[in-house]
């Protein structure tokens, strides 16, 4: 039985891990909820964001410039991907959409490997994020602590865009009935482009924020893609609040299980997902037949 301080430390770490997972999953769920497209290139886009961060910080040394330039870059990637590829698949079966985004993901990963090589790259922790903070019983890296705040702010901003703006209204109406919204004279296609781009930027920004913590390498996105899927299944496919709650739950499951035996952390995550699929197939916040 792990000690009480260790359990508390892991519970806290679960919160930190959970907010990051929520951010990674949010981009995936927005695109799925709105466009009905399960974006298998999400992990590759996460990785692309981390590489954008690596390139900019290596050139300028500035963390904020990295995020800014990286976000603009990801926006462009999102627009190009939507206009050039994904748009053509809106009317096609889900299998086609999965295959085409999966293929796009492979192309992105291999292109990055061809340009930067297979070796891992490092993105430095920003000067204000260095060191360790002592929180009573627990020592925690400063940057990870600050990330909780940064990610929470980003998730809140996304919430405002989706739920408190007229664009968000169109998007959410589009989810319910795209044809009806079109008949009302609203340009749904443009809204969809915007949503896809926002989803891609969300994936990229998660990669940028994560870059100083982990090693940046071409395959770094694959494990995050899998975890993001689990998160949105738990939270409810296509539900934004579901992704946030699902992320926090997944973070806690991984962390608390690790206090007992880290080897079972992933197994436990899948076990909970399987249990949830049996008891509440639409996920915590999902509505039946939405996607």
């Amino acid at each position, binding site marked *: 039985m*792990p*000690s009480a*301080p*260790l359990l508390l*430390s*892991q519970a806290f*770490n*679960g919160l*930190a*891990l959970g907010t*990051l997972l929520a951010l990674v999953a949010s981009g995936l769920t927005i695109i799925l909820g709105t466009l009905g497209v399960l974006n298998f290139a999400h992990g590759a886009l996460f990785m692309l964001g981390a590489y954008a961060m690596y390139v900019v910080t290596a050139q300028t040394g500035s963390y904020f410039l990295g995020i800014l330039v990286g976000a603009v870059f990801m926006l462009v990637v999102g627009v190009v991907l939507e206009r050039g590829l994904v748009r053509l698949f809106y009317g096609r079966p889900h299998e086609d959409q999965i295959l085409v985004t999966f293929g796009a993901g492979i192309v992105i*990963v*291999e292109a990055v*490997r061809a340009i930067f*090589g*297979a*070796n*891992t790259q*490092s993105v430095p*922790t920003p000067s204000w994020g260095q060191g*360790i903070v002592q929180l009573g019983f*627990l*020592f*925690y*890296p400063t*940057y*990870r602590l600050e990330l909780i705040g940064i990610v929470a702010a980003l998730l809140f901003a996304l919430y405002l865009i989706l739920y408190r703006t007229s664009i968000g209204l169109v998007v959410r109406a589009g989810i319910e009935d795209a044809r009806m919204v079109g008949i009302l004279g609203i340009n749904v296609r443009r809204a969809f482009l915007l949503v896809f781009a926002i989803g891609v930027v969300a994936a990229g920004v998660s990669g940028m924020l994560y870059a100083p*913590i*982990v*090693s940046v*390498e*071409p*395959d*770094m996105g*694959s*494990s*995050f893609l*899998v975890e993001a899927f689990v998160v949105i299944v738990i939270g409810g496919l296509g539900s934004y609040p579901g992704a946030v709650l699902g992320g926090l739950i997944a973070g806690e499951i*991984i*962390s608390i299980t*690790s*206090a007992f*035996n*880290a*080897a079972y*952390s*992933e197994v436990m995550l899948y076990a909970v997902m399987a249990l949830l699929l049996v008891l509440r197939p639409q996920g915590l916040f999902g509505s039946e037949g939405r996607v």
Partner: protein
Amino acid sequence: MINRSDAAGLRRRQLLQLGAGAAGGLMLPGLGTALAAEAPLGTWPAGTTGDSVFVGVTSPLTGAYSADGKDHVLGYELAFAEINEGGANAQAWGLKGKGVLGKMIRHGIADSELKANVAVQAQTQFIQRDKAIMITGCVSSATAVALEELAQRDHVLNMVGASGANATTGHDCQRYGFRSQPSAYMACKALAPVVAQHYGRGKKVAYLVPDYNYGHSVFNAFSEFTKPYGWTTAAQVVIPLSASDYSSALLNIANSGADVFVNIEFAAQAVNSTKQAAQFGIFKKMQMIVPNISSFQAQETGAQLMQGVFGTMDWYWTLEDRFPLSKNFVTAFRARNHYIPNWGAHIGYLQTYLWALAVERAGTFYPPAVIKTLEASKANPFNSTLGKVWYRAEDHQLVRPVPVVVAKAPKAMKSKDDYFDIVDMVPGEQAISPPALLGCKLGPYV
């Protein structure tokens, strides 16, 4: 993804020379007559009737071990090129003429994607389509063991590795598999006395263990060999192989009260976990030991974090000061690839030469004859990049010195590639396990 080399473009003059060489080979005493009677076996003689032979190479060119995998392949390619050319480097190993027994080596390279089934599929294709006479290459023990099984079933020689798990020459060993890399047992047996002397007796150890064959092998070996020095296990944190965020595992380690942190993660994951361990302040409380240091670990982690880390390696480039064949290897590799080779490349290079030497000694590609030659190499060791080495007949583990290294402080580095001091070269006979200990039972020859 499959590339095929093009050694088929032989010049007519070379062909004539080859013909002469092959004719000369057949005149060696008793050779042609003794072997002509053997029944066909595996890809023999079908794969050896032309003027060239084919070697199948699999290596992870994508995935977490892809940097090591690429290095590994470049080692093979250099060895094939040198052996085909038959120049001074090949002669220094003791090979005669161009190619092996006068036959050029063609090769195919396939990406194993770090998956055993993909590697087996690719090598099966090399065996069936290209009549590969030898298969080799991997950077994971799971793949190594699967390829050994394939080799045994199809009667094609397999120069195994990179692979560090005990099972490779332990209970999963095969008659057709030979491994040059030190087993986890050898690495830890060589390392334990050095670290115990450096850090003292009675240390508490926290382990980060990747959840597969290799990870558990290293954990078992290291804890066993440090036990006589009073070292105990404070935490054994086993984590899934695909982990990328180590925060929860590292919290366990930070809270374990250990003095020493043994990090068994490999390649990109070794770098990633080390970096995150630093973020969690673990190095303020604990010294890190890495029983088997990955090829790119020091340069990717940086000397600042690596300094003072003890570990072992299959080979390190500064061995060029001790062994002329290592010097040749480093020089030729740098000229060809513009960087200093790592041990992944060394395994490819060494194993190709050892195979070629065995074939020339045997005077035939007939697998059982080559196997018996390798098994008898104790009586007549090969001169190699690591000095005198031989394969042990009982389990096909190469008996070779194990380099124990410690990472230098940034100030002590003589060049940007000079990350390690070689503290000790522990003789193979001293490090290797007793023959029966790891449960090896070799299969039949035919």
